[in-house]
């Protein structure tokens, strides 16, 4: 975006302090900048959105305000994005040491304190705080309209309390209004007043009203420093001098701060005193001479309006910014690989793993020449308190860092400041340019906000419905697909109460969080248009998402000429993938039984889910062959001679790699008419369908195909490469996407230096505050049927067979801890 020559400035304004009771100062500056004739726009943003909005709005000037609690990395990126950068610190000399260090990131530093200026060397400028007509300007009151004689508001430093006490003693009957907040580090104020009369708080808009409603406003300075290297006292008065003047207050000012005279004329616009005695004398005089007092208040107000509003301060800032030399273009860097972080629940080689792990592994290898892939993965062998960072190289996955957290992970967590800060650290440390979220299992789902805060572009592949529901296959408590897009939150509450003991409102909380989250991810990828539509139905705001794309995932290239299918009897039917409830396992037992004496043989290539394993043994089905699991890439030759493949999922699969593999192997698919299966297969053309929840209809369909094998052969003739996504095609698409996202990411040149200071932003720092860190709060447990224990028993046996004794013991310990925590509502 090019700057308008008449109104050249497009400003990003950031309050660096994440918890700032004086944010109104920043608001006042924002209003003044926005009203400046040379300003086209002011974007006031918090840490969560600042980099993103600076880029989106084409900001060319970054102004950081306050200086405290600065996250240096974010500011370094903002400075790089905007080109010119100013820091206006407001807490010198109390925070001088930190401010000077932070000042290195900026072109110029404006200090609230003239005495601190030298520490900033050539880039230092003095700029006192000011007042705002919007917030502070009030009519000067007539004497009779004043409510109080004397008003003072400020921390109860002992020197202040002593003077106030003396005034109360010497001016009998004086009507005081005091606000003296104190803390445990200060002595209790020794005043002849009960604490409730001086220990109260008021917002700044009321502070100026108390000042306006008082005949005299006392201005006393503090002797204090929170920083070890800070000077004991600021040389420049704080904002209240200007605010009270603009509010029409008459000020009696401690002259220990000589610089007050630089802004207001002593005797004409304020009255000064050098000691307690003078203060009392002046107070007595001006209470007795209201006309003199009001004239001084009016003169001070006129001066404040003319010289000491944020409009004048904005003028200074913009003039200095305009005088900065053009920043030289960054030298072209040598071509190198993009650094992409895959945030995922698991990697290939760590059982059990499935399609997502295979996909991300394939893509990392496919794009290895252009992309350096890192994988951020929870360690599933422990309780989730460890995440490991791997980089993929020629030897496979090489661990480069392990992050240990104080507590275990839980799928109920929406935020975890410790994990968020660690994640931000990784992004900076490894110069990550794109984060690709594959799955949130084992991670807190707040991580995309953190990447966005740092200006790192993000992408998420929606491999299932995890953002929609913790039951990410959308199978409800009755064991069936729930049609989530048609369910009310009350229906979800009942389902989640049964499955996860969740209190009512849990789904609303989770959906609100994920719905907002998805809007803050740069690119969303779903495998089919149906998935896009379902997500949009449940998260309506996604209709406006700028990049929500349907792109199928590729499967392993079988590199095999399709062998003509055999349709001789018995008809051989392959089931590819794990045999599980979600894949229609229970229903298939009925089908196998019904077809026990028919000329058909089912061959199962995949592991049997533990809860179904006992039924396999008990039924003794002669028409079923259990081949067990297979290694990716080895399936093709094992399918020779098989005519049909059966895909019997009971949930709306988002793509189904097994379908692609079946087609590639020349098999004709018979699929449940649900989700991607129903969408990808054209009935009677390149496969066949049956209603997903009617096993009898599946039996009928199989008998029909056994009887009419020519229909299978006809469908086989229609199988072509356009039915599945090819690896090269998907690779080109993803490489281009990564490149465009990396181009959006904020520059990282200063990271190595900047990352060393300042706590990284958390979700709350990004403006997303949660009353509870978990979406699920535990309801009273529903009594479980007596069959629960045998089911667990069978699962344990199944796990033992597949993973061995040590892994099973670890898994059982983890499960016991999980159940105990759930029982305790942790």
């Amino acid at each position, binding site marked *: 975006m090019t700057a308008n020559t008449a109104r050249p400035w497009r400003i990003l304004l950031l309050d660096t302090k994440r918890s700032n009771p004086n944010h109104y100062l920043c608001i006042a500056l924002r209003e003044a900048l926005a009203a400046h004739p040379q300003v086209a726009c002011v974007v006031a943003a918090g840490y969560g959105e600042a980099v993103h909005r600076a880029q989106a709005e084409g900001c060319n000037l970054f102004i950081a305000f306050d200086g405290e609690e600065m996250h240096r990395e974010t500011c370094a990126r903002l400075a790089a994005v905007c080109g010119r950068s100013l820091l206006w610190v407001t807490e010198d000399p109390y925070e001088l040491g930190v401010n000077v260090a932070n000042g290195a990131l900026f072109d110029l530093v404006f200090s609230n304190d003239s005495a601190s200026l030298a520490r900033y060397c050539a880039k230092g400028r003095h700029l006192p705080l000011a007042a705002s007509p919007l917030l502070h300007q009030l009519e000067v009151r007539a004497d009779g309209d004043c409510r109080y004689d004397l008003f003072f508001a400020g921390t109860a430093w002992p020197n202040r309390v002593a003077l106030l006490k003396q005034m109360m003693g010497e001016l009998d009957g004086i009507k005081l209004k005091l606000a003296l907040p104190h803390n445990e580090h200060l002595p209790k104020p020794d005043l002849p007043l009960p604490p409730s009369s001086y220990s109260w708080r008021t917002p700044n808009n009321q502070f100026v009203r108390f000042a306006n409603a008082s005949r005299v406003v006392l201005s006393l300075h503090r002797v204090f420093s929170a920083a070890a290297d800070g000077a004991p006292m600021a040389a420049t008065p704080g904002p209240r001098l200007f605010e009270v003047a603009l509010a029409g207050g008459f000020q009696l000012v401690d002259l220990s701060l000589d610089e007050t005279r630089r802004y207001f004329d002593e005797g004409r616009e304020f009255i000064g005193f050098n000691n307690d005695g003078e203060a009392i004398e002046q107070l007595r005089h001006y209470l007795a001479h209201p006309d003199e007092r009001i004239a001084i208040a009016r003169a001070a107000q006129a001066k404040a309006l003319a010289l000491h509003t944020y409009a004048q301060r904005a003028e200074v800032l913009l003039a200095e910014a305009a005088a900065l030399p053009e920043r030289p273009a960054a030298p072209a860097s040598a071509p190198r690989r993009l650094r992409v972080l895959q945030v995922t629940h698991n990697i290939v080689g760590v059982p059990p793993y499935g399609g997502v792990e295979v996909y991300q592994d394939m893509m990392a290898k496919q794009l290895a020449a252009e992309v350096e892939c890192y994988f951020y993965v929870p360690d599933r062998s422990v309780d989730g308190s460890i995440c490991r960072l791997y980089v993929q190289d020629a030897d496979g996955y090489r661990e480069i860092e392990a992050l240990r957290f104080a507590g275990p992970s839980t799928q109920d967590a929406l935020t975890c400041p410790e994990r968020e800060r660690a994640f931000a650290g990784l992004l900076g440390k490894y110069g990550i340019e794109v984060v690709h979220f594959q799955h949130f299992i084992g991670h807190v789902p707040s991580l995309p906000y953190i990447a966005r805060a740092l200006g790192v572009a993000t992408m998420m592949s929606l491999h299932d419905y995890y953002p929609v529901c913790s039951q990410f296959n959308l199978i409800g408590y009755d064991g069936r697909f729930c049609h989530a897009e048609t369910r009310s939150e009350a229906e979800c509450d009942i389902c989640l109460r049964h499955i996860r003991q969740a209190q*009512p409102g849990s789904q*609303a909380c989770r959906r609100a969080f994920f719905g907002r989250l998805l809007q803050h991810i740069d690119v969303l990828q779903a495998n089919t248009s149906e998935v896009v539509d379902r997500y949009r139905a449940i998260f309506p705001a996604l209709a406006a998402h700028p990049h929500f794309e349907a792109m199928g995932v590729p499967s392993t290239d079988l590199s095999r000429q399709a062998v003509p299918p055999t349709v001789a009897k018995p008809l051989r039917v392959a089931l590819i993938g794990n045999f599980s409830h979600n894949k229609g396992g229970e229903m298939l037992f009925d089908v196998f039984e019904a077809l026990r004496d028919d000329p058909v043989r089912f061959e199962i290539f995949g592991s049997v889910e533990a809860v179904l394993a006992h039924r396999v043994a008990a039924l003794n089905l002669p028409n079923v062959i259990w081949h067990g699991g297979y290694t990716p890439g080895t399936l093709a030759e094992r399918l020779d001679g098989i005519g049909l493949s059966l895909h019997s999922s009971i949930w709306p699969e988002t793509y189904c790699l097994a379908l692609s593999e079946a087609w590639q192997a020349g098999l004709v698919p018979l699929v449940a008419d649900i989700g991607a299966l129903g969408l990808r297969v054209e009935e009677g053309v390149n496969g066949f369908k049956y209603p997903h929840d009617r096993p009898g209809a599946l039996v009928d369909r199989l008998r029909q195909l056994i009887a009419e094998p020519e229909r299978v052969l006809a469908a086989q003739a229609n199988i072509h490469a356009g039915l599945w996504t090819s690896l090269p095609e998907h690779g080109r698409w993803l490489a281009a996407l990564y490149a465009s996202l990396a181009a959006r990411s904020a520059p990282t040149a200063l990271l190595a230096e900047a990352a060393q200071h300042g706590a990284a932003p958390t979700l709350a720092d990004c403006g997303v*505050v949660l009353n509870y860190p978990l979406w699920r709060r535990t309801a009273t447990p529903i009594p479980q049927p007596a069959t629960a224990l045998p089911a667990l028993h069978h699962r344990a046996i199944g796990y033992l067979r597949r993973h061995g004794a040590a892994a099973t013991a670890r898994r059982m310990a983890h499960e016991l801890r999980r159940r105990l925590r759930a029982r305790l509502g942790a």
Partner: protein
Amino acid sequence: MSEQVQVLVAGSFPDRLNTNTALRRYLVEGFREVLGVAAVAEASLETLLPELQRHRPKLLLCLGSCPPEVVNYQPVRAACDALGTHLAFWLHDDPYEFDLAYSATDVADTIFSNDGWAVLHYDHPRAFHLPMAASVKAHERPWRDDKERDVFFCGVAFANRIAIVCDLAPRLARCRTEILGTDWPAELPFAHNRRMPNSELADACAASTVTLSLGRNLHFANRRYQLDPSTPGPRTFEAAMAGTVQLHFADSLEITDYFADGEGVLLFDDPRNFATQLDALLGDPGYARRIAEAGQARARRDHTYARRAEVILQRCGMAPAVTASAAAVAVG
């Protein structure tokens, strides 16, 4: 479908968690006073979506707070988009829950905040200040000469309230004082930890010469800007409508925007100042009555939910004219 409905007033969070559903009823009555009974409908958050589809209103106003652990406004926003309905929130727990307001600002066309200082801090292009109010029907009471108490207060014993009441205790102990609510320390002989429903509060205020007006300093989600409250809460308006004199601890002067000095409300700064004013009121029932009735008249004129409804309609582009007094409180 009822074609007449123009405004649907809904809870912004589930009724099962909402102890202030009475406020929504008062606001519905206020809108009905302005627009007519048939033009206004009410819904809980739980029934909002079907009611929205049924009534297809021009304006949906959600009243309350928006704790993110129980609310999801995206379907509400989508329904409003489909129906062409203006979506507004009147958030009444500012500044105590200010940090949670993003749930509403994400989706709202217009935001109203009960607090004049908090509203300045909203990151929303259409955020307006709208103080709470009173209901004539629910809160107005005739003056009673036979007062049952001299001083009354009902509310949670926040730390600032305890400090003030403890400092006032020597004087309060010498008259008929009753402090109700929760968490009051046992050493205050006139304080009883007993809740009183909103429906009984007006009677209690009317039966008391003086009702204390004490702010709150307990914040649930107010870390980002640590905002101090500026605007008095609904009890101040309700008590004025009930015809009691309020002695208001002066931690903000914004109350003088709603009640002029002596118009139902007297400010105090310390126990001495409190005692002087209390003595004057108890010593001269006619004086107390004049002040109370002035406050009641002001509340009836300017601080009813009907006046607030007018401001809402005007801000949301639905009403050509607003009474001057209503406009005066709508500090944008």
